[in-house]
């Protein structure tokens, strides 16, 4: 067991840091530290250009195998890349759903034709993706999907509604779980379809969140179409493929998230030092605990990745989502407490609703413990699958 990185790793770290320093400049400079969760509306077009810039330089698909055009980097390099990207203030990636979810799913379950068609534009930043999982009646109970698709000639025709779809308003493609077997229920009879977003059968309606901004959308499918071959896995295997996609959420990019959190905590600490709250013993305890908790998050992620080659999910992987979400939500509240009365004052003028980044943090982190499996669902999963306690009785 070793935490220290090798000299060769450190050289790679220096290479990434130097590239970021030299490239996150000029027209890209305003993007620093922008566009993360809660801030996805910021500088969108510029970030799309940045995604292409990253792709051209070979910094997309860092963990993808070289055989499909990725960098094929070893785990230590992936960790370093995501850490240095975030440390330098690399903006929120507009291509992260393609790179982190759609791409790995296609690599794992897709056909050779699908790999040739869909992977290169993800790597180049030319095509953006969104995820069509949740529905109004399929949130925590994801298997209750009602969106339907039927094969008509050489096309799938889709009817239904998805919700909480990040980036749907800008995405070129959506991976959709739809019910393809008439009369099926639960996780049987579902299929995993790749659907083009730019068509008249699709309507995207933004959801205004408590932050006043809109990261998430409702997506309506009203006779939307996709080619018959745009199915990943066989018809009826959608649940298996979808669960595979969820597993990819535990990749090395977790370390980039941890580093982004570190930047946020650093900002809170700087404010506490500047406004004197750093001398308050209660605040000191909380800041120190947050700092320790964040280092623990990194160690937990490194442990999780070191065991990622094993077939069964490890305990540290099971607790990971519950842990980071709760830590981050608590940081939002700590930021407000450090700011004190000043936390109330927003940006912009009268008649506008423009939040400061820390206000956005405070409000947006309320969603962290809800999306991608609520804290309650996470606790059920930990208890039932990691601890082997009896399953919840279902109606």
């Amino acid at each position, binding site marked *: *067991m*070793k*935490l*220290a*990185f*090798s000299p060769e*790793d450190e050289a790679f770290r220096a290479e990434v840091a130097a590239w970021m320093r030299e490239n996150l400049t000029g027209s890209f400079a305003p993007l620093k530290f922008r566009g993360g969760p809660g801030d996805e509306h910021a500088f969108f077009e510029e970030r799309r250009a940045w995604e292409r810039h990253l792709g051209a330089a070979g910094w997309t698909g860092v963990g993808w195998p070289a055989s499909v055009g990725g960098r094929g980097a070893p785990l*230590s390099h992936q*960790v370093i890349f995501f850490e240095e990207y975030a440390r330098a203030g690399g903006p929120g990636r507009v291509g992260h759903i393609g790179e982190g979810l759609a791409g790995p799913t296609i690599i794992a379950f897709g056909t050779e034709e699908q790999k040739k068609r869909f992977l290169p534009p993800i790597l180049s930043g030319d095509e953006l993706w969104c995820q069509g999982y949740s529905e109004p009646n399929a949130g925590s109970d994801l298997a209750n999907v009602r969106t339907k698709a039927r094969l008509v000639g050489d096309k799938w025709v889709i009817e239904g509604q998805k919700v909480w779809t990040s980036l749907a308003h800008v995405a070129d493609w959506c991976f959709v779980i739809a019910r393809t077997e008439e009369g099926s229920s639960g996780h049987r009879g579902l299929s995993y379809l790749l659907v083009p977003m730019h068509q008249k059968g699709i309507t995207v309606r933004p959801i205004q969140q408590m932050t006043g901004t809109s990261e998430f959308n409702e997506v309506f499918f009203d006779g939307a179409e996709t080619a018959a071959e745009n199915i990943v896995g066989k018809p009826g295997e959608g649940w298996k493929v979808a669960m595979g996609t969820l597993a990819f959420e535990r990749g090395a990019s977790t370390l980039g998230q941890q580093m982004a959190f570190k930047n946020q905590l650093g900002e809170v*600490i*700087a404010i*506490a*030092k*500047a406004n*004197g709250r*750093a*001398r308050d*013993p209660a605040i*000191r*305890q909380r*800041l*120190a*605990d947050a*700092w*320790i*908790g964040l*280092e*623990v*998050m*990194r*160690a*937990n992620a*490194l*442990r999780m*990745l*070191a*065991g990622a080659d094993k077939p069964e999910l490890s*305990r*540290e992987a*099971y*607790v990971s989502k*519950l*842990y980071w979400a709760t830590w981050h939500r608590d940081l939002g509240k700590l930021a407000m407490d450090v700011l004190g009365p000043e936390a109330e004052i927003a940006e912009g003028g009268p008649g506008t609703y423009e939040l400061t980044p820390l206000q956005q943090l405070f409000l947006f982190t309320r969603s962290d413990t809800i999306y991608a499996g609520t804290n*309650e669902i*996470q*606790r*059920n999963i*930990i*208890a*039932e699958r*990691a*601890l*082997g*306690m*009896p*399953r*919840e*009785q279902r109606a």
Partner: protein
Amino acid sequence: MNFAFTEDQVMIRDAARAFLGEQVTSTHVRRVMAEAEGYDRALWAEVVALGWTGLIAGEEAGGSGLGFVELAILCEEMGRVLYPSPFEATVVLAANLLSALGETQHLAALAAGDVTATLAGPNAQGQVTFVADGGGYSLTGSLRHVPDGARADLLLVAAEGTDGRTALFAVPGETPGLTRRALPTMDQTRRLAEIEMAGLRLPAGALVSADAGAALTLALDRAAAMMAAFAVGAAERCLEMTVDYTKGRVQFGRPVASFQAVKHQCADMALAVETARSAAYWAACVADETGPNGDLSALARAASGAKSWCSRAYFDCAATAIQLHGGVGFTWEYDVHLYFKNARAIEQVLGDPAFHRERVARLIGLDDTAEAAQ
């Protein structure tokens, strides 16, 4: 960077778990903790024979020269079973300190199992000072809460000199004039004592180091990391006992483990255990990778971070274990109370969580306000 056990480390863990699981049963713990001595000498001889007392001692001291990750593994396994023994005082404190000082003579005796030892210094409450006295030294002061202070064969006493430096003396337990009083403890698996010296005369040869301050800091941080690992093993055992008990306990016609109110508390225990394990291994790795000339502030952050994180996790798990055992969790018969009492004791060992968080607060620069403004 590979944050997973090597094959050798997995072997050490499996062997330790098998040995301790067989030897240190609940019956063993309960028998030994009620006796005056507080540990089983025959079992201790086996532990010595396994080489555990010489684990971190270098080959020149007859040890196997392994590191703090391996020691953390042993501590974690001992925590699982609450092994009542001189291990913490002799190896985690004394051998660790002697090793940090580069001392070999006493270290060899500890490694060989010839003597048990402890540290009577900043890990206890109180102070000892010394002055040069003829060809030797004279020590005065008292210390409370010295682990194994009354039963250890050898005491490593840290004492402050007139020049403000901290020296380390090797004081045999039976030295005339050294007063040692065993203190009754709420957690019977650990032994604490009060020691007193009023002008205790020591020969020149008793001096181990004239300037042990830096080595003490290094060794105590490493020891804090090891106690964090101990807490992980014990906390995990609390979780296992609770899951087993609630699966077997039927109320309202179903196992109480099937109720969400119970499951969610167990999930929170699992979260505490796993994050604590990550914290303890982090600190163990940094303890291993940080020598006397390394980045001691990085070690201090990791050690204080892990000690506060893991001992809180342990206490929370032990407390939840009692609650979820219901009435029997409150009885002497079930083992949960042993862990609950030990958890509170481990919180205090080498500084409580609030102390360590405050230390981290300083180490991450919360007091650098003036500098930041300039």
